[in-house]
């Protein structure tokens, strides 16, 4: 089953590369996405399919990520069709092919239970997404791609070293070195502590680079700023989630090895640092796409904090993966529409989006309120759960800082968003061709509905899945 999920998109990618028509090629995306989502739900409904081999196992966290990635991709794929219709002047062969490949690889990440394989997959996502950032072929996009590649590859290289350390950690104990998650978890307590910790640090930095934790986040604003909005959405919801999953593995091992207190210090430090940095860079941010990038940095930080708090906060963390993913979908897609309508992403030129694009403007505003944790939207539930975790294990300082940074982010982000949305639109923007169409407006609306739904009602299966994930992270086979 795993192979179908992984290979089908890649085959479709090959097909896309083969199709000549620039206009019809994009339609491969929704088709593939629909099949992929259908398969995903089938797999999730059938526990017996979850194990395909020792290396390919779909455990609860993997299921969550797979669900997020697949849904995100489904909605984005429709948006892509609409978007690429506006960009007929440029060949989308590579774009579509890379997107499809990327879907396959992300599925691989969710299945991989062998850390080496995991690493290969993550590195592959880096490579397959680079052309997406480069889509506009402008000087700026080249620069963004270059930085993304270099910083990303160096980070990933460190992750590789960390993986090796992890394998080596079992040597001093006289065990045969291995990288399969199951075995590592099983003899986690025997692993040599120094190597384990070293590998933890390296993997934190390595996969943290991919997630975009401060101070390894530097590629993020450039990449998100220059890539098309939809790519931003897939990065912020998909790539980061995959990297987080990869990191979750080593976290799991360290927790099983009884390193909890040690790693929680690191995680809290990194998480709060990321939130703080994101907040600082958002203050007075004039480029609303870069602002979204920093918001993504902030939310990676929130995930780290949740992980570091552990216990009751774990549920919130897992939930936040989902809510953050879909909310980012709303923000990036609507931001993309606004960007296109104004042909600028600088708040000096962009204002009055609510009048120029009533739908996208409203969505952008609502998305902002959602992502900053206002009830009744999904992120509120997850962030509040994490806060409860902080209070629950008596870490009042963490809770205080958490709230403080949330406030800073709210102020920094709100200033920019309101500048974009409110006021009168400058006259010249009314003759840009773009107007909200079905394909470009419906997906963000769908995301928004999801966000609202998650804030008021978490479906029982999802809740069960989240609880399983929390259980799983606490367990060791």
């Amino acid at each position, binding site marked *: 089953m795993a192979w179908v999920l992984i290979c089908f998109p890649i085959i479709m990618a090959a097909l896309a590369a083969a199709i000549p028509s620039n206009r019809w090629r994009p339609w491969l995306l929704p088709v593939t996405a629909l099949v992929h989502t259908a398969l995903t739900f089938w797999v999730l409904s059938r526990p017996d399919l979850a194990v395909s081999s020792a290396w390919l196992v779909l455990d609860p966290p993997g299921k969550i990520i797979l669900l997020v990635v697949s849904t995100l991709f489904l909605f984005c794929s429709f948006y892509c069709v609409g978007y690429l219709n506006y960009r007929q002047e440029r060949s989308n062969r590579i774009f579509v092919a890379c997107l499809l490949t990327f879907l396959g690889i992300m599925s691989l990440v969710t299945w991989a239970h062998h850390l080496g394989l995991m690493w290969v997959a993550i590195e592959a996502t880096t490579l397959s997404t680079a052309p997406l950032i480069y889509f506009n072929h402008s000087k700026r996009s080249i620069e963004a791609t270059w930085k993304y590649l270099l910083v990303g590859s160096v980070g990933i290289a460190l992750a590789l070293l960390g993986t090796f350390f992890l*394998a080596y950690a079992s040597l001093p104990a006289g065990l045969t070195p291995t990288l399969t998650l199951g075995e590592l978890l099983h003899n986690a307590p025997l692993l*040599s502590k120094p190597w384990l910790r070293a590998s933890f640090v390296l993997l934190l930095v390595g996969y943290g680079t991919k997630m975009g934790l401060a101070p390894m986040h530097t590629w993020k604003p450039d990449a998100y700023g220059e890539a098309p909005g939809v790519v931003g959405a897939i990065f912020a919801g998909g790539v980061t989630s995959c990297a987080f999953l990869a990191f979750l593995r080593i976290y799991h091992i360290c927790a099983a090895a009884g390193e909890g207190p040690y790693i929680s210090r690191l995680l809290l430090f990194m998480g709060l640092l990321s939130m703080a940095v994101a907040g600082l860079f958002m203050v007075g941010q004039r480029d609303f796409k870069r602002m979204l990038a920093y918001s993504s940095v902030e939310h990676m930080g929130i995930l780290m904090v949740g992980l570091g708090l552990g216990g009751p906060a774990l549920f919130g963390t897992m939930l936040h993966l989902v809510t953050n993913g879909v909310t980012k979908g709303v923000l990036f897609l609507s931001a993309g529409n606004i960007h296109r309508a104004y042909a600028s992403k600088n708040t000096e030129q962009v204002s009055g989006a609510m009048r120029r694009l009533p739908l996208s403007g409203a969505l952008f505003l609502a998305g902002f309120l959602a992502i900053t944790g206002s009830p009744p939207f999904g992120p509120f539930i997850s962030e509040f759960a994490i806060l409860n975790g902080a209070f629950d294990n008596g870490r009042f300082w963490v809770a205080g800082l958490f709230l403080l940074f949330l406030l800073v982010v709210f102020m920094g982000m709100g200033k920019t968003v309101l500048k974009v949305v409110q006021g009168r639109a400058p006259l010249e923007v009314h003759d840009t061709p773009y107007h909200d169409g079905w394909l470009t407006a419906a997906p963000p609306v769908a995301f928004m509905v999801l966000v609202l739904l998650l804030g008021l009602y978490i479906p029982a299966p999802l809740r069960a899945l989240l609880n399983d994930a929390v259980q799983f992270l606490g367990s060791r086979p």
Partner: protein
Amino acid sequence: MEMLNALLVIVLVLNLFALGTSRILSVIHIVATQGALLGVIPLLLHEHLSLPVILAAAAAILLKGIVIPSIMIRSLRAAQIKREVEPLIGLLPSVILGALATAFVLLFSKQLPLAAHPVNTLIVPASISTVLVGFILLTTRFKALSQVLGYLVLENGIFIFGMLLVQAIPLVVEMGMFLDLFVGVFVISIITNHINQAFSSMDTRMLVSLKEE
């Protein structure tokens, strides 16, 4: 074993050469040699030669020693640029820095709780110091190509460490890693070409239009 240690020492020396050389072409050659030498390590490390070991060695020599360097040289030719690297800090200081880092790691490695097998004290320090040298190259060079070279040195360092765990890392994964490395360098060199066309230079100091103003 002595053989292996000698090899590793050569690798370390090559690091310092890479730091000290000014012409990009020769740096490429140095890195290529280093890669090829690394390919030999597994053969020396494991006395009874198994298939994965041989394959890994072959792939390493082929890729690190021949394919990637040739790609680099082509893109160097394609880019009609001044052939000197332009270090942030002078060549000599960077050499000294690298030397210090290496020395520090060698001393520090005494503290590391190393496994009884394989009994060799040089592999781990060699790999770590190579990684550090890679970082020094990455952070002190401006030419896109020389930064790529730094990345390669970094990879080499990691590869050395990987040699300890051939049996831990199955062949498929090994190959996957090589593939990634290859594609990575390939894509990067494509991008460097684009940079060279767009900016008519490979100086990454030109690439500062994306920033917080």
